[in-house]
């Protein structure tokens, strides 16, 4: 054999080998079953699965991202056999299955990238539609994109000019996307997804004022425009919006805050009611939570200026009847010394039956309330003295299931109102970077020390599956871990941790979503999230996990 022939044969063998490997069927176990690769849906419309010697069970796979998602029960160490039309596969189940990536979308080609005049382009919202078939994504530079989960195809695109695409909500029938803009006008729009036609719009600046940043050309300053901080569609199709305008009328003066909770007719845009009824609340309504039947909304309202006794509307929790828009009860927060005001963020959750509410305040206190009265208060993230300054842990992310009140404690810091001028506010706190799962009686059921800062939290509709984004911070990084950790809140053995998926770059705040049935998790990785002087890590990517 000549040298050329030998070389040709070697190359042919190599190419054949390289080509054959990816096509071979491969099963990766996942928490709800497994992901089958190398088999087309047409070949395996029905698959029978048998694990641990149990009788084979037929199941219909779901195709997402060119892979087949299978839902079946397995136990650690069991042998599982899969059979379909043209093939079969056997595999041993692992002790724990981490989430499996079914599609990773490079967002560089999808989104505008930061330019010399841009602060970045982090995503501002990420949400699944009620059926889990669509995924909507918005950015701080006003891009809105709706993608089909199964194919990754973009079905709707829109651009918000000079503002953030701040929040969004799908109508229950998924025909309409409600888009909330943080712009000079603070517009809420209802857009038909099929035609792109705008059904209605409402400018919140009419009620909350149209003042804005002193430098409107600065994208970072757009937070001073009026905008929707949370939107949710309720059964029947109406839309709830937490509108907040938070700005400095005078750059050297105090901040001004005006808030309303709105209920719109989802079809026509008619304003059914707004709370408070006449003048907006002089507080910051940053979040509200609903019970499963959407009978009442509990809003959390914070205060940026100094608290004083006798305020007609003090910072606190306010429950509003969703039928009438009337206030049901209020629970005022008073500042904890040495602080002079009460800050809040995404810090309220409602038990699905509506009978209890969990909340937290910026000074590190955690609350459980029943019918507007405090049942339990604990300052787990509360101030500890370091160098004479009070250090607290972030407490802005909460979740509620039938059995558990979930609190996420983030990085330690000195609140701005107590921070020494010019000094770093990042400080260690003994309870920072911890997830706490309390029973509604206030007893701690489960505690998880996170390897990094919890930066986002999403619960499936039934409350069983919890996804928590972990991301690196500018200070006190224990590890460079950027990940999504999953928890099964109904795990019978009490071991809630259900695996994690790592991303290369950081995950922006609140950019993790879980499909209503809990099967899919979406998370955005963005290298522009942290400006700590080091080269950005990772890329702008959307990870879809099973």
């Amino acid at each position, binding site marked *: 054999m000549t040298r050329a022939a030998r070389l040709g044969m070697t190359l042919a063998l190599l190419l054949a080998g390289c080509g054959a490997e990816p096509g071979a069927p491969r099963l990766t176990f996942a928490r709800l079953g497994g992901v089958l690769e190398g088999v087309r849906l047409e070949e395996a419309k029905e698959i029978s699965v048998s694990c641990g010697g149990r009788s084979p069970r037929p199941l219909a796979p779901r195709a997402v991202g060119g892979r087949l998602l299978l839902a079946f029960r397995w136990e650690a160490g069991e042998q599982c056999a899969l059979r379909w039309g043209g093939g079969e596969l056997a595999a041993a189940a692992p002790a724990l299955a981490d989430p499996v990536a079914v599609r990773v979308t490079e967002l560089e080609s999808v989104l505008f990238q930061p330019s*010399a*005049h841009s602060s970045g382009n982090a995503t501002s919202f990420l949400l699944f539609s009620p059926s889990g078939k669509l995924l909507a994504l918005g950015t701080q530079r006003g891009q809105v994109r709706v993608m089909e989960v199964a194919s990754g195809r973009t079905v709707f695109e829109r651009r918000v000019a000079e503002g953030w695409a701040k929040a969004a909500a799908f109508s229950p029938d998924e025909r309409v996307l409600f888009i909330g803009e943080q712009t*000079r006008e603070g517009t809420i729009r209802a857009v038909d997804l099929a035609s792109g036609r705008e059904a209605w719009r409402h400018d919140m600046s009419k009620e909350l004022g149209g003042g804005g940043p002193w430098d409107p*050309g600065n994208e970072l300053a757009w937070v001073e425009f009026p905008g929707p901080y949370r939107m949710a569609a309720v059964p029947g199709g109406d839309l709830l919006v937490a509108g907040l305008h938070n700005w400095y009328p005078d750059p050297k003066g105090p901040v001004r805050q005006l808030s309303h909770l709105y209920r719109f007719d989802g079809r026509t845009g008619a304003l059914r009611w707004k709370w408070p009824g006449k003048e907006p609340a002089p507080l910051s309504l940053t979040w509200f939570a609903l019970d499963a039947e959407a009978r009442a909304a509990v809003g959390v309202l914070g205060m940026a200026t100094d608290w004083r006794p006798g305020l007609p509307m003090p910072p606190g929790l306010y429950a509003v009847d969703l039928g009438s828009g009337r206030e049901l009860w209020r629970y005022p927060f008073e500042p904890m010394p040495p602080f002079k005001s009460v800050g809040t963020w995404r810090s309220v959750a409602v038990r699905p039956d509506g009978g209890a509410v969990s909340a937290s305040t910026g000074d590190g206190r955690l609350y459980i309330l029943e019918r507007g009265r405090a049942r339990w208060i604990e300052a787990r993230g509360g101030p500890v003295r370091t160098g004479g300054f009070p250090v607290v842990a972030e407490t802005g992310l909460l979740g509620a299931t039938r059995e558990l009140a979930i609190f996420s404690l983030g990085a330690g810091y000195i609140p701005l109102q107590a921070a020494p001028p010019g000094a770093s506010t990042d400080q260690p706190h003994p309870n920072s970077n911890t997830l706490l799962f309390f029973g509604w009686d206030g007893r701690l059921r489960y505690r998880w020390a996170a390897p990094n800062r919890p930066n986002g939290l999403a619960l499936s509709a039934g409350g069983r599956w919890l996804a928590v984004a972990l991301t690196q911070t500018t200070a006190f990084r224990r590890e460079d871990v950027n990940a999504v950790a999953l928890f099964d809140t109904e795990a019978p053995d009490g071991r809630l941790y259900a695996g994690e998926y790592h991303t290369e770059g950081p995950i922006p705040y609140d950019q993790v979503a879980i499909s209503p049935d809990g099967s899919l998790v979406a998370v955005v990785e963005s290298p522009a999230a942290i400006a700590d002087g*080091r080269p950005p890590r990772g890329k702008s990517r959307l990870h879809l996990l099973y």
Partner: protein
Amino acid sequence: MIASSRAAGRDPRFLAGCLLAIGALAVALDSIPSLGALAAAGLGWALAARPGWRRLLLLAAALGLSVWSLMVSQAIFYNQLPRTAILVLAPPDTPVIGTLTGGLAIYREGIWHGAVQSLRLVATLSAGLAAAWTLEPSGLLAAFASLRLPHALAFCATAAIRFLPVTVEEAHVALRAQRMRGLRIGGRGGANALRALLSIARPVLAASIRRAETAALAAASRGYDPARRRTSLRPLRMGWGERIVLGAALAAALAAVTAKVLYLLYASGLYHHPALAALYTFTREAL
């Protein structure tokens, strides 16, 4: 002379208009793609003028040096974050220079920033050279006349440009004469250069005045009267192609400057109209 300009297909008004448009765009544009397109247009114009090898080398040297110096200066003095040091020239603990500057390094992002900034220079320099290569000074008189400028002023400007090479040559002669008398320009710590400048100014000025008188007499003896209406043997007529290109260039420049002014008014909080929001975003991102 006009004939040769026409033969080259370059109406002086077309050249002046294109230069104005490119200059305005170079000031108004900020984004990388738009500046890149402008630089490509300027460079394309220069190459379309079919310069000889010497001119091509001149263009390459002028652009190369400008781009290089901008990239080097930005690479060292880039102060935005994030920045990646690819070569440390002086660590922060280096005596004097390190302690004064906080350390010197070459930053990858700075090189890129310098390259982007130099696109303005590439555009204007290339366009300027292209115009100079294709413009006949005598064609200017017809161009000024078509723009209805006072003829006396137009005549003066054209004559000044026309005699510029002669004046330069005279300065060379005067300088050579000074050297033959023993002048060393670099001597006495640079003071000789000043002396040389003063000593050649007098003969050059005298020769210029003398030549201006001669030119004025020659014009007068041929019956030149600035107050009379003038005709041209070959009146300037811009071709359709030139008109379209010039119109598009001026329209683009006007649109970019208008958009930029509106955006600056908005960004400084002076004037805002909700209907212009999309224009503000386009200006910020595309221009």
